[in-house]
């Protein structure tokens, strides 16, 4: 009986020793134990560099694009409000008036006829009259090219000083066209005055333009005084 007990105890002890050595082995810090944390860190870095950073960059791009779109939206809202505030009927009427005063095309003959007619009404006699189309540089002030189109020519009339001055005044104040005077010369010749000058009338040709809704839009209603002048000048032509 004791022999059996001893054998059993020896077996137990052996098993326990094995367990102990196994446990001791397990408690040792091995490279395999830190592989997973290191892998996780490496994956995190790789993900960060190749996935997260581009994703964040893209998201930031989305955000900035979003801001741009919102800005555009605001611009369109404002434009819509401005356009809605314009009465279609009044707009068309103002456009007709403006086109009468500064027409899409100004015939040399019509313009010269008007000037000569005005001079005759003021009691002046024509001594020289000629005209032709011109292009004037405007340093980019018009939308279609860098020039303004007009009809210009040297004129000379004779008459009394009062008539001459009245004629000059009417050219500006009473002319239905937009006119400028240059190289004005007044000469008295024994009580008769001769006026020689260059007169230019302007026109804006029709240009087929596509409207960009995002371009800066200036409503014509911002210039009510000039629109009124156009209206009164146009009424003279009717």
């Amino acid at each position: 009986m004791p022999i059996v007990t001893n054998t059993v105890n020896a077996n137990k002890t052996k098993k326990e020793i094995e367990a102990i050595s196994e446990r001791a082995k397990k408690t040792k810090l091995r490279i395999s134990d830190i592989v997973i944390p290191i892998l996780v860190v490496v994956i995190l870095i790789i993900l960060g560099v190749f996935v997260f950073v581009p994703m964040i960059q893209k998201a930031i791009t989305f955000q900035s694009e979003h801001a741009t779109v919102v800005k555009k939206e605001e611009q369109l809202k404002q434009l819509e409000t401005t356009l809605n505030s314009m009465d279609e009927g009044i707009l068309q009427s103002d456009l007709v008036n403006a086109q009468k005063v500064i027409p899409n095309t100004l015939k040399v003959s019509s313009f010269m006829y008007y000037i000569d007619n005005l001079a005759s009404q003021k009691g002046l006699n024509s001594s020289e009259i000629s005209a032709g189309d011109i292009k004037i540089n405007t340093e980019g002030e018009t939308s279609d090219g860098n020039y303004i189109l007009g009809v210009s020519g040297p004129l000379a009339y004779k008459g009394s000083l009062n008539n001459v001055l009245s004629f000059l005044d009417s050219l500006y104040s009473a002319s239905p066209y937009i006119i400028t005077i240059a190289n004005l010369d007044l000469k008295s010749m024994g009580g008769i005055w001769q006026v020689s000058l260059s007169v230019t009338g302007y026109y804006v040709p029709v240009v087929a333009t596509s409207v960009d809704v995002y371009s800066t839009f200036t409503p014509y209603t911002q210039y009510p005084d000039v629109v009124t002048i156009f209206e009164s000048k146009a009424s003279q032509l009717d």
Partner: protein
Amino acid sequence: MNNQSQSEKKIDTKVFEKKTPSKVAPLPVKAKEKLPPEAPKPKEQVAPSNILEEKSINLIPTLSKEEVVIAEKKKKLNVGSIASLLILVIVSILIIGFNIVSRMSLNNEKSKLQAYETEVTKMTQKMISSNEITERVKLYNRVLGKTFSPKEVVDYINAIAAKSGTSTVSDFSLGEDLSFTLEGNATDMENVSKFWYLLSNDPKMETVTLKSVGNGVNTVRFSFKGKLVLNDFLSSTN
């Protein structure tokens, strides 16, 4: 039986006194079962015992300090790994979420913008008409912004000549910037000099110089060159 349990209790107490508190193998189950129900439970007495029931000795040694430290390290590493994974997952969710939300928001705004564009495009004719008027208004302001009434200028110079006495102007040349050349005659030099003085001291005169002066038959001919202040003559005839 009672005696036996008492003796075991004594042995246990002894063991407690000797041991250092550390993580060790738990008491064998059998040993626990054999304890009498009324026997006081050892407090935190999960404490190790090297003496096994059945009169044998527990050969499983307690962990050494180094082993305990390594075990702790392992535990920490495992916790660290889990935490890293958790962070990875959370960060991924956050970034992807941010990206998705940004994209959705952008798409939403884009569709809104498109709706506005459609709405505004319907009103492009209004824009074209308004732009046509605005272009003419700008041309008008540019062309007639710096014009003057020739009548007003001639009348003004004639008035100064009349103040001087006998001086009369027989030739006016006016430039676009209101530079002028005057030619005329007076009865004597005194009137010419008076006229010159008046011109020179006139507040609306920017510059004036006597170009020439000469005696004629009963008259003195003179010629002046100068410039008027444009702002003082800017047209009200526009």
